């Protein structure tokens, strides 16, 4: 995605600065809000970085689950809530059967898969019937499914579906509000629930990870420059500008590398920053998320990915060229639902507690808001935008209560502000997109 961006900017360098600002206005506005928020909150760097890291690893998967439907032209898939419900069903089952730690987690992934695929198939069929209104239909489908989910777990489990034990509300029918996934073995005192079982596989200091990433990235860039230089480039102009960009990237990575080294191995920094070395990264979780991000990039280059793109760009052309559009759209939603389910398992295991009737409710709202804040639109979204969006959105999430407290004397105000931002950013993005579509349509009509 970096390539694409740099090419775009390099080609349109002259006088296109204003276009760049307009196209990325949401993201730029957010960067400003976040900077103000960080300053106003006076948050400790230790807390900020560690919380951001945790949220980045646990939320990115869910946001990435939105990408395929966007490419397939179905807009933002608000029904990832249903994938989350599939995950929660699986988590409830493994917790009830007392499958412990990593085995339980694996069980949850396996059990959630068929549920999510079947549900995804039905959502896909429904969305094929509501063409042109997929987003609102997917949102309402989410609410509808939430009703069914509650009906099952509040009124049927314990009654028609026999379940007993401390999961059930006293009285015999319905699941409790919360399920503890960090349950300890009464004898040994070890955690036997699936909570944190992915995170705890291998943890090590975060800044070692940063150093590794920086070194790898710089090496990659240097190789890129060399190969670029060797090629007799057709458009020499764009290469030179690319080089500037690459050098800037090298410098930023280098600075980050130096900062990491200072944090880990020296005492030169003030205490506020020096204690950053205590932050650990859940390496396996991060690896899973990065691998999934890679998958999203790679799949678009395969034949299937091209099919998704063709369907997304023009259904009629796709139909004429022999693509079964309806089937491809169903497949896109099935994949999205499945990934949402896996993402929700990663999310819940990190939290260590399952809020039976609440954990899934805000998933779609926050994921969609994050993606849009990263600069995505209804028709275009990239992996980079997903990560940037999660970073910005969750920075705001962390700092806004404290910023509200410091600026207005009320933490609640900051909390309401961030909810407003989540809804508002979706409303504005969708509105702008609808407006552009209408202008385009009018242009075509008048021509």
């Amino acid at each position, binding site marked *: 995605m970096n390539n694409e961006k740099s090419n775009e900017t390099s080609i349109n360098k002259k006088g296109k600065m204003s276009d760049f600002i307009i196209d990325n206005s949401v993201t730029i506005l957010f960067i400003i809000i976040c900077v103000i928020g960080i300053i106003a909150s006076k948050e400790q760097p230790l807390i900020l970085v560690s919380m951001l890291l945790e949220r980045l690893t646990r939320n990115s998967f869910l946001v990435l689950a939105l990408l395929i439907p966007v490419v397939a032209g179905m807009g933002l898939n608000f029904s990832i809530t249903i994938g989350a419900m599939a995950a929660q069903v699986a988590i409830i089952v493994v917790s009830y059967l007392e499958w412990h730690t990593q085995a339980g987690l694996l069980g949850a992934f396996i059990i959630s898969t068929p549920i999510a695929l079947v549900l995804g198939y039905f959502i896909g069929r429904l969305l094929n019937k*509501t063409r042109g209104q997929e987003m*609102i239909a997917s949102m309402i489908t989410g609410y509808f499914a939430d009703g069914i989910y509650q*009906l099952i777990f509040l009124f049927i489990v314990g009654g028609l579906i026999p379940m007993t034990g401390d999961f059930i509300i006293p009285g015999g029918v*319905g699941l409790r509000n919360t399920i503890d996934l960090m349950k300890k073995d009464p004898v040994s005192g070890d955690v036997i629930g699936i909570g944190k079982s992915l995170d705890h596989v291998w943890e090590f200091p975060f800044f070692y990870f940063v150093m590794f990433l920086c070194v790898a990235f710089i090496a990659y860039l240097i190789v890129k420059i060399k190969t670029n230089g060797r090629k007799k480039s057709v458009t020499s102009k764009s290469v030179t500008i690319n080089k500037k960009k690459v050098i800037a990237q090298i410098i930023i990575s280098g600075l980050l590398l130096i900062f990491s080294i200072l944090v880990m191995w020296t005492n030169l920094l003030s205490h506020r920053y020096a204690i950053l070395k205590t932050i650990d990264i859940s390496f396996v979780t991060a690896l899973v998320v990065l691998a999934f991000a890679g998958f999203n990039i790679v799949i678009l280059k395969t034949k299937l990915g091209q099919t998704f793109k063709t369907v997304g760009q023009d259904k009629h052309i796709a139909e004429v060229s022999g693509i079964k559009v309806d089937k491809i759209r169903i497949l896109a939603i099935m994949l999205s639902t499945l990934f949402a389910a896996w993402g929700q398992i990663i999310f819940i295991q990190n939290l260590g507690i399952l809020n039976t009737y609440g954990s899934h409710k805000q998933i779609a709202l926050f994921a969609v808001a994050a993606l849009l804040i990263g600069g995505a639109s209804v028709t275009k979204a990239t992996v980079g935008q997903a990560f940037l969006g999660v970073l910005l959105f969750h920075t705001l999430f962390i700092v806004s209560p404290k910023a509200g407290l410091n600026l207005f004397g009320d933490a609640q105000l900051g909390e309401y502000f961030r909810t407003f931002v989540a809804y508002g950013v979706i409303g504005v993005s969708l*509105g702008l997109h609808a407006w552009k579509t209408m202008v385009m349509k009018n242009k075509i009509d008048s021509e």
Partner: protein
Amino acid sequence: MSRINKIGVPRLIIICFFMLLWILAAVKNLQVSILISNSLVRIGMNLIMVLAMVPAIRCGIGLNFALPIGIICGLLGSTCAIEFHETLNMSSGQAFLFAIIIAVPLAILLGWLYGKMLNKIKGSEMLVSTYVGFSIVSLFCIAWIVLPFKSGLMRWPIGQGLRTVVSLEGTFDKVLDSIWDFNIGAIHVPTGLLLFCAIICLIYWIFSHTRTGIALKTVGDNPKFAQSSGLNVDRYRILGTILSTVLGAIGMIAYAQSFGYLQLYAAPLMMAFPAVAAVLIGGASANKVNISYVILGTILFQGLLTIALPVASSFFEAGNISEVIRMIVQNGIILYALAQGGKLYE
């Protein structure tokens, strides 16, 4: 078969379910008279907000998911009434009127702005309006803290801002419900409330037969035809949006007086959905609506919700089953309508 298709399968299921519940209530020896009384109140409480869907559908913006804009105006009017009713020494009837007088101009202003916005996004009204509704509710979460209301009836005793639930006791609690109310046997009839709804419906019915009302409908039915016959489509769409927002505001005030409390902060977030569902259950679609649909839909939907809980709890420990049924029925019918309407876009 064609008749079943005309009514629609989900609608048929809901009607059967509705009748089944009432039969069960009678069989189980529940106090049917109390259930009927409660249903009457809830039908009256919700009717005007459902009616707010009519001008929106008629003028072509479709189901108005941004009803919270009107609702917020209604809440602002009501909070102002509480704030000033002591200093201005208002009776409860005056306070009720005062709330409406404050709310309506606000609703006209916001409805106008919102209508202008909708004219720029033709074709995606439903989705965008949903998020406009959500945004304004969450914006007002901040406003309820910041606005300079002083009345001790509304503010938290300690801390900032207004309470999440504000009692209307002493202002206009039950002001409509208690006008000319009477009992038939054990059934309590809130005459004033029902009469108020009837009057508003009548006014709207008369309006829809005026020149403007007919033009409004023409614009919604066939914008191209309306344009070619010299009607300003965009202006009528704005008019429809304003009317819908104003009805939402009045509907909220009527709802609050019957409920006895104002629910601030996040409470209005989802309030558009029951209204949308009711009008759809009554037989409306995204481009066809009638006042009779509004009345039928409200009776079926609110009647169903009132009776579901007592009937269910006569069988088992039912908890909040009414809420769950509301979610399933309400969103199911909206989905059905979307799936039916989807064919228009092929």
